């Protein structure tokens, strides 16, 4: 095993822990556990349901949901077809709400269009400016790159000269 800093390794640990590894416990807790389970049986509904019961519960709740939905749909249908007063009011309220939404939507769209009309010319001007300035920017970029290359060459030259004149150190640590 590869050792990390301070890790004595698996063999060392196994050797150290061997006496403890030989220890086992003989005890019989079964009567105690079963007595406790029996005493609390009423409070403790054994655990969660078994898979079969879960599937059954799931299917029956789905059926119930479908039945409830069908009941709701048919009730609404009967109310609408029968010209119920409450339904008429609800439909009227819904239509008014829809109109209000439409009006607000139009106002929001108008505001958006005005904002765009203001911003678009500015964006266009910016783009035109960039197009005009592109050759200048390119030139500046080239100049910067050339400067970088020159700087590297100069550094190389300086280091090379420094190495030539630097004192040499031998393997025993002495300076020649």
């Amino acid at each position, binding site marked *: 095993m590869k050792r*990390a*800093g*301070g*890790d*004595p*390794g*698996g063999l*060392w*640990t*196994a*050797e*150290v*822990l061997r*006496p*403890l*590894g*030989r*220890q*086992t*416990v*003989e*005890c*019989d*807790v*079964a009567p*105690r*556990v*079963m007595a*406790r*389970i*029996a005493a609390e*049986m009423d409070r*403790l509904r*054994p*655990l*969660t*349901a*078994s898979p079969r019961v879960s599937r059954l519960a799931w299917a029956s709740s789905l059926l119930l949901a479908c039945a409830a939905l069908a009941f709701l749909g048919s009730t609404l249908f009967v109310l609408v077809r029968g010209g119920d007063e409450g339904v008429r009011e609800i439909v009227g309220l819904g239509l008014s709400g829809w109109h209000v939404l439409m009006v607000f939507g139009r106002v929001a769209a108008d505001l958006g269009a005005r904002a765009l009309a203001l911003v678009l010319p500015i964006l266009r001007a910016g783009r035109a400016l960039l197009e005009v300035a592109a050759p200048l920017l390119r030139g500046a970029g080239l100049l910067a790159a050339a400067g970088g290359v020159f700087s590297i060459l100069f550094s190389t030259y300086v280091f090379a000269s420094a190495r030539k004149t630097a004192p040499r150190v031998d393997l025993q640590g002495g300076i020649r």
Partner: protein
Amino acid sequence: MAEEPTDVDLIRDVLAGRVERFEVLVRRYQRLVATAALRMGTPRDEVEDVTSEVFYKVYKSLGRYRPEHALSTWLYRIAINAALDRKRSTRHESRMEELSPSLADGRPSLESQATDLERSRLLQEALERIPGHYRSPLVLAHLEGMPLEEIARVLDLPEGTVKSRLFRARAMLKDIIRRHYPMLAPPGAMESAT
């Protein structure tokens, strides 16, 4: 001859309402749980309490058991958590009780048995100085002999984390033994380990 029922069969029976079948599971695994609790530093006189608490918890949440993993993996997880919880709640001041004669080590010589018990007592003291989240992988790897993959499943941690905690726990153990229990170091091993 009737075949031994598997763990899954027994669990299925219990879930179907045959609660008495749970006793078979308890008898099958009580030694494993009790030993794990003891090795995690539970005092001998509290091992039975911890063990029965573990099985009670197991019974209550048996419906959540997934048979993809061995029941022992799940039991180890609950046992280790129960042992650590017990430790936190009772705050033993390094109180190490005498190990009772019911500890079975399977060794013939009384003298060597006594030496072993004394070493075990000191080792438990040393292990108690290691924080629980480092001690658990150490106990599972070197006392329960579990592979890294299973330890990761028991502790619900990534394998990399288990590995690093194991390294750290071993380093801590070495340091504790060097400082406080030099008599526990294997002869000549401390020098080679440092």
